[in-house]
């Protein structure tokens, strides 16, 4: 079997200027900080980041906002990171951040849809709002729905609580969030793991993400220090 365990630097080697990257977690709980740190170190620019939110300055996706590496952010909420508004409103084109806001449930479902080979889905969320602009409205069973499209990325950076050497992964507590769907919707999937165990150590009934989705495993992810 192919060895998937590598350093953060090796794991993100394929990320280039302009890459699209899904990042797991919710307000950085469930975000792989070691992979974010390596990406800041690498300095790839003009990234499209897909994440529930913008983290906070100094944590999670917030680090990539601060470093100016993000060109486009697709997220559901950016209010807890004031830097996002600053960069959205700047006149300096090199600093300019485009922010595409998507309802949280729609974002999760769009990522799932890509991973599950669906061409889209009908959601009642956003009907009659600016979220509906440019989207097809389809009436089904007497109710209006928006047709939402699947969403994919070149890379996914996930945080696993326990990962075996094949990549089978579990997530503790509320670190699960977007990680399982993102594992299915990116070309190259990297897990920053808090704990790496032998294959077979995780009960087959409790694995959340199958190792077939995982291309690289990076150990050493640590719980956030309060």
């Amino acid at each position, binding site marked *: 079997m192919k060895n998937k365990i590598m350093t953060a630097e090796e794991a993100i080697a394929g990320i280039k200027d302009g890459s699209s990257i899904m990042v797991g977690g919710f307000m950085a709980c469930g975000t792989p900080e070691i992979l974010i740190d390596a990406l800041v170190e690498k300095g790839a620019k003009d990234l499209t980041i897909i994440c529930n*939110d913008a983290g906070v300055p100094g944590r999670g996706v917030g680090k990539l906002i601060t470093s100016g590496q993000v060109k486009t952010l697709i997220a559901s909420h950016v209010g807890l990171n004031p830097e996002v508004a600053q960069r959205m409103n700047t006149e300096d084109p090199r600093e300019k951040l485009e922010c595409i806001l998507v309802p949280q449930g729609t*974002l999760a479902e769009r990522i799932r849809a890509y991973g599950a080979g669906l061409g889209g889905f009908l959601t009642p*969320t956003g*009907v009659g*709002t600016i979220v509906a602009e440019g989207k097809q409205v389809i009436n089904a069973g007497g109710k209006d729905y928006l047709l939402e499209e699947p969403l994919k990325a070149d890379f996914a950076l996930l945080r696993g609580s326990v990962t075996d050497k094949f990549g089978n992964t579990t997530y503790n507590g*509320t670190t699960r969030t977007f990680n399982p769907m993102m594992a299915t919707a990116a070309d190259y999937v990297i897990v920053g793991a808090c704990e790496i165990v032998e294959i077979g150590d995780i009960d087959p009934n409790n694995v959340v993400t199958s190792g077939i989705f995982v291309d690289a495993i990076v150990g050493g992810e640590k719980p956030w220090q309060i």
Partner: protein
Amino acid sequence: MADLKARIATRVAKELKDGDVVNLGIGLPTKVANYLPGDVHIILQSENGIMGMGPAAEEGKEDVDIINAGAQYVTINIGAMYFDSATSFGIIRGGHVDATVLGALQVDKHGNLANWIVPGKMVSGMGGAMDLVVGAKKVIISMLHTQKGAHKILDECTLPYTAIKVVDMIVTEMGVMEVTDEGIVLKELHPDFTLDEIKEATGCRLIISPDLKPMED
């Protein structure tokens, strides 16, 4: 102000029934959990992946892997479970949440809600709010009746909608209102205010319920 918020939270709490699955928004709505009658136990859903959320974690005892949707460290109750965000919003959109309590920037007589964006000013994002108000069986808006004197309950929202025709009930420090096909019906008026005062503080016609009651603290 603190008292007014307690008053609102107390009144909202009476709308919740034992066993209800409830999602509480950040801020004032979160306080509702503190005012439940002793025989009412609700199940709190947190959209970042908890069914059965408990109180905030004690300082020094936080588990960094367990937060609520407001990014605060929380605990879980016995019988809780965790899930991913697609599952979480399946629960929300699928009508499995009995009630959601949120704040609002504006509500109108059609039950339209605006609470996520002030163009050119507040860039925050809708988070899970659009899904919650569309999916929950009952949408309760808990807020101060006006914003520094400006009307928040209107004929038509002027801010971008969070969703259309979703609000069931509005609870403010002045009273309790229900959104009906005919418009907004005042069901309870707080004794601190007169009918004229609440009418003046409201930007649309208030239908006075034939059995108007006093709102209790």
